């Protein structure tokens, strides 16, 4: 079986516009969540989010590009550029044909939909911009990445709500492992922080109005974020032959379905995915030192996730670290697993475990080491990244140090 390594990483999110800034913020336990600056925010009851700030699309793209690139596509393109530049790859000939892009998203071009519904329903106009469809479609980001970098192999978009990125990266991993491709650009992107996007989430009554405090007894719900994360996954022999710097190795992946409830998570479904990823990686559970939690900050997730980890690891659950970086960058929904994979890579490469910030009160139902409030230095050899989506679709990745 072929081995798969990560040779490039890129991101833009509420903590930073690139990987170094994001990792620095995670090390410092900085919070990127703040007051939303969006149109009609006064009509929302949830007014906070992990928004990408200080971002000017005109600094990165020209007018023609902006006419085609929704914000989620822009975030994907910027992240992919950073990742591919780091990997140092150019795609032509046979390599281009053996390289693809699989990205996750949940809402796709939701801001484009929101703006254009407004135009026809609220403003009463009878005409919309001709590019509305190619701008809002869920695969727009993956397609533009493939076009910009000449990636001509298997390319598509995965939409499994909050697990989209992990499912996407799992697909990319398996494609290289089983010989369908040699290089895959993968990750996810999301930009739902528009009036309609936040209003829809408000309806479920699981959103916090003040902060995201995963695993803390006084948690008050989830907070939405936005942004993207992208990685270059590469066949290990290919990477070594060209002397590429290896950030980490992807060693296992598993996905399960709860087949139970459209919003309530299941301990069994989550635990099966966790165990499945370790089994796929042939990783003894004692070797796992860190888990990047799904950790949304809702009572339903946090209690179920801790119970699933306890179930999957037995006594070892008490000696591993589990943190949720959503407390800092918010929940990027379809892009969240990608940004969170950065915390996994930081743990493996730098021996720094990103904290769960906003942690205030012990919850007996979440009695694991959640790395509260401050990053911690610790050497870990293998890590997991959890994602458990609405709809009961679970996806867990296993990584080890290069």
């Amino acid at each position, binding site marked *: 079986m072929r081995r798969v390594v990560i040779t490039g990483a890129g991101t833009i999110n509420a903590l930073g516009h690139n990987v170094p800034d994001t990792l620095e913020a995670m090390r410092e336990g900085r919070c990127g969540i703040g007051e939303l600056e969006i149109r009609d925010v006064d009509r929302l*009851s949830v007014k906070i989010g992990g928004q990408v700030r200080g971002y000017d699309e005109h600094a990165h793209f020209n007018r023609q590009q902006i006419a085609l690139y929704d914000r989620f596509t822009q975030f994907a393109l910027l992240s992919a550029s950073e990742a591919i530049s780091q990997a140092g790859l150019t795609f032509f000939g046979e390599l281009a044909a053996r390289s693809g892009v699989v990205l996750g998203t949940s809402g796709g071009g939701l801001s484009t939909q929101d703006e254009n519904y407004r135009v026809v329903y609220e403003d009463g106009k009878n005409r919309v911009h001709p590019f509305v469809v190619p701008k809002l479609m869920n695969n727009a980001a993956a397609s533009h990445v493939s076009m910009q970098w000449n990636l001509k192999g298997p390319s598509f978009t995965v939409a499994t709500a909050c697990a989209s990125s992990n499912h996407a990266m799992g697909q990319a991993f398996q494609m290289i492992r089983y010989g369908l491709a040699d290089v895959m650009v993968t990750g996810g992107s999301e930009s739902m922080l528009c009036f309609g996007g936040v209003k829809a989430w408000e*309806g*479920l*009554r*699981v959103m*916090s109005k003040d902060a995201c405090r995963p695993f803390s007894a006084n*948690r*008050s*719900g989830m907070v939405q974020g936005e942004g993207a994360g992208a990685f270059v996954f590469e066949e290990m022999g290919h990477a070594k032959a060209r002397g590429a710097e290896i950030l980490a190795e992807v060693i296992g992946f598993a996905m399960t379905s709860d087949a139970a409830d*459209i*919003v*309530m998570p299941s301990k069994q479904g989550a635990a099966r995915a966790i165990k499945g990823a370790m089994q796929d990686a042939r990783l003894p559970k004692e070797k796992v030192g860190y888990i990047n939690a799904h950790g949304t*900050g*809702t*009572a*339903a997730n946090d209690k179920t996730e801790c119970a699933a980890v306890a179930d999957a690891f037995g006594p070892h659950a008490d000696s591993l670290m589990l943190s949720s970086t959503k407390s800092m960058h918010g929940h990027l929904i379809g892009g969240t697993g990608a940004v969170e994979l950065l915390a996994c890579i930081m743990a493996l490469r730098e021996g720094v475990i990103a904290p769960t910030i906003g942690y205030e009160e012990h919850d007996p139902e979440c009695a694991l080491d959640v790395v509260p409030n401050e990053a911690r230095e610790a050497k870990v050899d293998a890590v997991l990244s959890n994602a458990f989506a609405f709809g009961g679709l679970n996806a867990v990745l296993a990584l080890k140090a290069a």
Partner: protein
Amino acid sequence: MTVQEKIVEIIAEQAVLEVGDVSLDQSLDDLGIDSLGLVESIFAIEEEFDIQVPFNANEPENSEFDISSVQAIVTAVEGLVRAQKA
């Protein structure tokens, strides 16, 4: 229709029961209404009475809005309707 009658009607619809089969001392649990059904009931109540119900699904037991029984919900909504008129 009184507030109580309207609420019983909304809850009965969620529980897929006849109005006459809902009694005020029952909890939503007794009536077989799960967390999604609860969120939908609250939405229906807000629409019906044009009020904002303070309820967070993360901490139903700590919400200012008492949902321990049908009677508790009726009392809470009557309070919210009064406050809104005042």
